[in-house]
């Protein structure tokens, strides 16, 4: 997509500022505006700047790139902007402006490394880790070459949050899901979010070919970012999917609903749930993870003040974790402070990237909380199969 495709609507932004706030206006809920405070760092400011750029009223600059790249793409603006048929496109417009930044040579250096590593045949992932073709895992878990399901692990789970990956693998085995793994490359989320889209379709096609080779009809992923990319961005890039995509929380919920599994042990903890932006505001999956949590015996779920559509972002998304590492962790610190107020000793999420950033804040600021993914809790429980 090109910015020109939005030329009929981009100037609709009135800069009224609803995009900055929580639902009740008590606080700012746009991470970048809350931190940088100039109007330029609000979504309204960005819309006006992009419009000015389209009209040649301003030029590309490092500052402009900085303003565009400091958006976590959390989608709070889309929730709070009141202008229908415009609000849905706010994050898209910012992401497309980033494509223009890349084309004009203004992609920040740190974000560039995401592409360099992902295209490197030794890595195929934004972390620069040697590519795992997942053969060892397939052997370890005795996974077949063809199966009904593919577990798309995602780079963060495979290279940074292996506990989450392993918990998912164990859960899938325990529940007798007929699944396998593929030699996956990055889902392309980091590239799309940072405007480095030139090779995206090719990588998507590679991944979909790998999935199709397994004859799977369904893909499950434990990553909110991968899930959004597979469900939304693949379609946008005209990828012939022909497979159903599930987030792990959706799969667990479906198994519980159909009575195929039951929890056979208790989880005596007070927890709070952090909505990943890519799962929540981007795909509307708020209740399913909560439904799963509420079916866990003895768990106490205390909601944070900002939850569901009104959630505070963890601060990692949109390339912010790599671009602004210190600030990103500060955003998570604010989330953990809010979590503490609930009386919970455990913060549960459904995204390895949120987990990474929340964990970093937990350690950096001695917050003394446990950060865990929902699938790790599920894996720790005794499961009764129908």
């Amino acid at each position, binding site marked *: 997509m090109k910015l020109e495709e939005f030329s009929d609507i981009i*100037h609709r932004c*009135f800069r009224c500022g609803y995009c900055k706030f929580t639902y009740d206006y008590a606080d700012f809920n746009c991470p970048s505006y809350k931190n940088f405070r100039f109007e330029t760092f609000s979504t309204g400011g960005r819309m006006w700047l992009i*419009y000015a750029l389209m009209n040649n009223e*301003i030029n590309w600059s490092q500052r402009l790139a900085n303003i565009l790249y400091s958006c976590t793409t959390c989608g709070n603006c889309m929730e709070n902007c009141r202008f229908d048929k415009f609000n849905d496109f706010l994050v898209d417009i910012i992401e497309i402006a980033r494509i223009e930044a890349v084309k004009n040579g203004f992609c920040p250096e740190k974000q560039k490394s995401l592409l360099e590593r992902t295209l490197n045949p030794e890595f195929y992932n934004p972390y620069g880790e040697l590519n795992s073709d997942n053969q060892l895992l397939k052997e370890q878990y005795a996974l077949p070459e063809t199966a009904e399901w593919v577990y798309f692990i995602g780079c963060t789970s495979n290279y940074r949050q292996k506990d989450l990956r392993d918990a998912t693998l164990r859960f899938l085995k325990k529940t007798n899901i007929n699944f396998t793994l593929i030699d996956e490359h990055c889902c392309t989320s980091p590239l799309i979010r940072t405007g480095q889209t030139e090779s995206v379709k090719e990588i998507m096609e590679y991944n979909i070919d790998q999935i199709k080779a397994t004859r799977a009809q369904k893909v499950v992923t434990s990553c909110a970012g991968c899930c959004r990319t597979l469900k939304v961005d693949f379609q946008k890039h005209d990828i012939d999917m022909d497979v159903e995509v599930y987030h792990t929380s959706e799969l667990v919920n479906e198994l519980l609903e159909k009575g195929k599994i039951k929890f056979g042990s208790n989880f005596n903890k007070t927890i709070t749930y952090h909505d990943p932006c890519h799962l929540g505001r981007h795909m509307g999956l708020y209740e399913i993870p909560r439904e799963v949590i509420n079916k866990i015996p003895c768990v106490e779920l205390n909601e944070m003040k900002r939850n569901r559509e009104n959630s505070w972002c963890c601060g990692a998304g949109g390339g912010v974790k790599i671009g602004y590492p210190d600030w990103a962790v500060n955003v998570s610190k604010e989330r953990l402070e809010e979590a503490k107020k609930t009386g919970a000793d455990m913060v549960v999420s459904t995204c390895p990237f949120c987990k990474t950033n929340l964990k970093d804040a937990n350690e950096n600021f001695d917050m003394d909380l446990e950060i865990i993914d929902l699938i790790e809790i599920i894996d720790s429980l005794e499961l009764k199969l129908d």
Partner: protein
Amino acid sequence: MNSSEILKKLQQIVGNDFVSNSQEELYIYSIDPGASEPRSIDFVVMPENEEQIQKIVNLANKEKIPIIPMGGGLTLSGLVIPVNGGIVLDMKRLNRILEIDETNRYAKIEAGVSAGQLFSHLEKNYPNLEVSIPDAPPSVTIAGNTLIHGSGFLSQKYGNHGDMLNGLELVLPNGEICRVGSCAVSDHWFTRGPIPDFIGLFTSSFGTMGIATKLSIKLYPKPKMRDLVFGIYKQPELSTQLIWKVTQTELAEDILLGVQGKPDWMAGYVFIITYITGKNQEELDKKEKKLKRIYRKNGARYMKAPPRIREVFLEKPQFAAKAADFRKGGGFEYVGSFFPLSQTNEAIKRGIKISEKYGIIPTLGARVIDRAHNVMVFFSYSFNRADPDDMQNARNALHDTNVMSLELGGIPWKGELGAQKLILEKMDPNYKYLLETIRNQLDPNRIMNPGNWEVK
């Protein structure tokens, strides 16, 4: 001192992160969503406290650089866009709610506190108290709105927001801190007098007299229940009498009139919304019954408000920005003029004609202020920012409306430069002398938002 030396000085005062002379900030702060032409800026600065503001004012005096204090930046009439360049002082980092005095019913806040923030704070922590907030986006600041004589949903009962100010703390153009109101004498920021009342000097003067950093605003008892009584009538000339009758009952918390060419069913009608409050449904029903009778006797027809209208008009803060989207073009400005009640009929009639002349769907209305001692009639013109002809059309309509308002004995509110010029042309010469003398005395270097209210 050259520009880069001034930048360094400003960075020393507020820190590198909160001063900018980059094209991005200069662009965004040089233009607002109204119809004013963009004007150039030299620096945007976001101070955190009064001490920093004092230092900036001292620097501006030394270097003779204009300073333009800015709240939410949503006056729509370009009041915080510099006329002669200079420093835009974005006040939104001064955003602490300092005190809610429940007994004496006031809120003491910093100048960057938004209407949404204070509204939300009271809702959560002081459910028996409320503040009159404007029909504006929640990002507007209380200070900005009160200091331009804004109005809101309690203005019918208690006056415009400028009247609700108990006191101010300011950085004067000479860099000194000054308190006005009871806080000049007492620790309690509870009222304006009984001392010479200088608060008025800082309202509607658009930052030409000083920079407000703190203020006290009145809070009011919050009713248990609120509802609205909706009515429509065909002839705008019934408005004055109808408002007079409704205000005579003392039943109205707020009264709004509206004329909208869209949706189609509203075209050709004036609608009236009277807000009523009460302890229980029975009380509301009694008030509604009485108002229905008054509507009927004065040529208006009661109409059960459609659910969408109820939802829109009972929401606090009201989603006023919707009017800015009529043309789907992100541009919106209105003349809101203060009129004596007696001129309301004519103002509405002429306003409709101006809209028709410029091919703009009529969107105007009125808020009754202080038991109809003042009626703020607003004439809105939304436009497409992407269409320069449409913007010019809106500017022409605004000019005609300003002229019409003054002809009818009204006064354009928060007027843009063109409106200020028209007002000054009509102003008593000795008022102008007084204004100029005070301003010269306070601000001999003319650093405070120069170009606004320029007598000479």
